[in-house]
């Protein structure tokens, strides 16, 4: 998928993450800030990159403000932001690329 416009998903509440995606032309540029960066920085990055790859996002600037979200939450926020950047909010591919 292509990132058509800036879009955001999630909140800054504890155990959530706020994910912003912006159009980019230089591969995936990922910025992560997290309250649990020391223990989970590596995993947060891996989950974000995996999710973007699954959605076939090749170019994007992605910013994650994480407040200790679990992997499932991180995935959902990344997916939601990517679909919002395409203006898609209905007929999402549940069970397809969204797992």
């Amino acid at each position, binding site marked *: 998928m292509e990132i058509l416009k800036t879009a955001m998903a999630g909140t800054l509440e504890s155990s959530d993450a706020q994910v912003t995606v912006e159009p980019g032309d230089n591969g995936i540029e990922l910025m992560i800030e997290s*309250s649990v*960066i020391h*223990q989970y920085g590596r995993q947060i990055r891996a989950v974000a990159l995996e999710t973007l790859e699954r959605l076939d996002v090749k170019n994007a600037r992605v910013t994650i403000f994480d407040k*200790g979200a679990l*992997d499932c939450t991180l995935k959902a926020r990344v997916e939601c932001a990517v679909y919002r950047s395409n203006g898609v909010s209905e007929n999402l591919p549940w069970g397809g690329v969204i797992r």
Partner: protein
Amino acid sequence: MINAVGREIPGEILKKTGKEPFKGAYANDNHEYKKAAPTVRALCDPGRSKMVENIHEALVKCGIRDGMTLSFHHHFREGDYVVNMVMEEIHKMGIKDLTICASSLGKANDPIVPYIEDGTITGIQSSGVRGKIGEAISTGRLRDLAIMRSHGGRVRAVESGEVHIDIAFIGAPTCDEYGNMRANGGKSDCGVLSYAMVDAEYADKVVALTDCLVPFPNVPASISMVHVDYVCVVDEIGNPAKIATGAAKPTTDVRKIMMADYCTQFVIHTPYFKEGFSYQTGVGGASIASTISLGKIMEERGIHMGLGLGGITTPMCELLEKGLIKKIVDTQDFDLGAIESIKRNPDHIEISASEYANPFNKGAFVNKLDFVILASLEVDVDFNCNVVVGSDGMITGAQGGHPDTAAGAKCTIVIAPLLQGRIPAICTRVTTVTTPGETVDVVITDYGIAINPRRQDLIECMKDVDLPFCTIEELRDKAYAMVGEPDPVQFDDRIVGVIEARDGTIIDVVRQIKEYEFS
């Protein structure tokens, strides 16, 4: 060198501190030593006054100079003004290279951080530190090694001469012109002055700071005039609203209530739950809830607590009022109810921190505990607890009486929710060991209860009890299944602090925190 809890204590640290690596919780039983003594000046001229105009005059008369060790107590908790105002005056005088030996330091003492940065304060010895002081130490801004000691360990260190206090500053809710201090009857009452008692006896110079000067004699005194050199009246020694808050409302968090119920069920199925048992609990929501639910069962069965020990909160005092506790023996009051109780109930007694927990006196109250209910930031699969360093590597807590009571009690129970946000409380290896696993018997979480395999007797007596028992490894695995296995925190090589075991050996070290780097 690897110590008895499997931690590497570098030789340079052992050399620098002259300390031994930790060898086991009771390795120094029967240790013989000669106590230290202060250098004091006599006052035999009845015409000489102890009153000074202000802190500056007190400092001058005490001969303040570079390199001294100054002590403070933390009974005013987050409402403390004493540390800040004394250090502000010292800073103005340009004195450098001071070590602070406090019973604890909290967020209220954040204003002293600039004095760490400019070399006024170069050493900190405390039960622990929170807030900005913790950040300053963890980021390597304190020149010397920070030393973290338990409440009992601090008394041992002072009495054995491991630390020598040049000047002790003691905030006193009431004081007379000759230095008799009491914890009650003023405008900043804190209930007891237990932690400051050893300072009064072992410091060369002792300054009483009060905001309520009362007529002589202010007796019975918590700290006697015979130890006090100078008396200084200041506007405020603390903020009463933050010294003692109203009683915390019993928690409504179902997770905490469930853990409290598990705890109470565990307690009543041990052989120690019988007439005259002794008990201590912390101030966390689950601990307080367990005191309340245990009280109900004590009432139903007509079982009385012989001794309620420790930091005291209102629910313990309510059990005393109901006649369900025979004696409360107190070193710190956490709320107004506890302070009111010690003022009027003759069975609520103030003791010194030495009587409470010193491992090197001839027997402390903690040794007589049947149960202690504690919390912990992290517990590992060896039952080691960490109550000082956050899972992110930042110093953010205090040992308090945790290692002392755990070592003393017949049954040490740690209550911890399995997860705090994404951070698992049960892990393979705690960030820093502060309480050795050999002294921790049971870990209660919202996902199950693990008994230390060293306690086959407890495992045996719980055989038919309907509680969700499992192994500590199972608890860790449940946590990791939900949140993932945490990576170890990335530390710098530099050691910024040592965690002292009760007996003065080194149980662990704290390293400087490093900015996170994606590998």
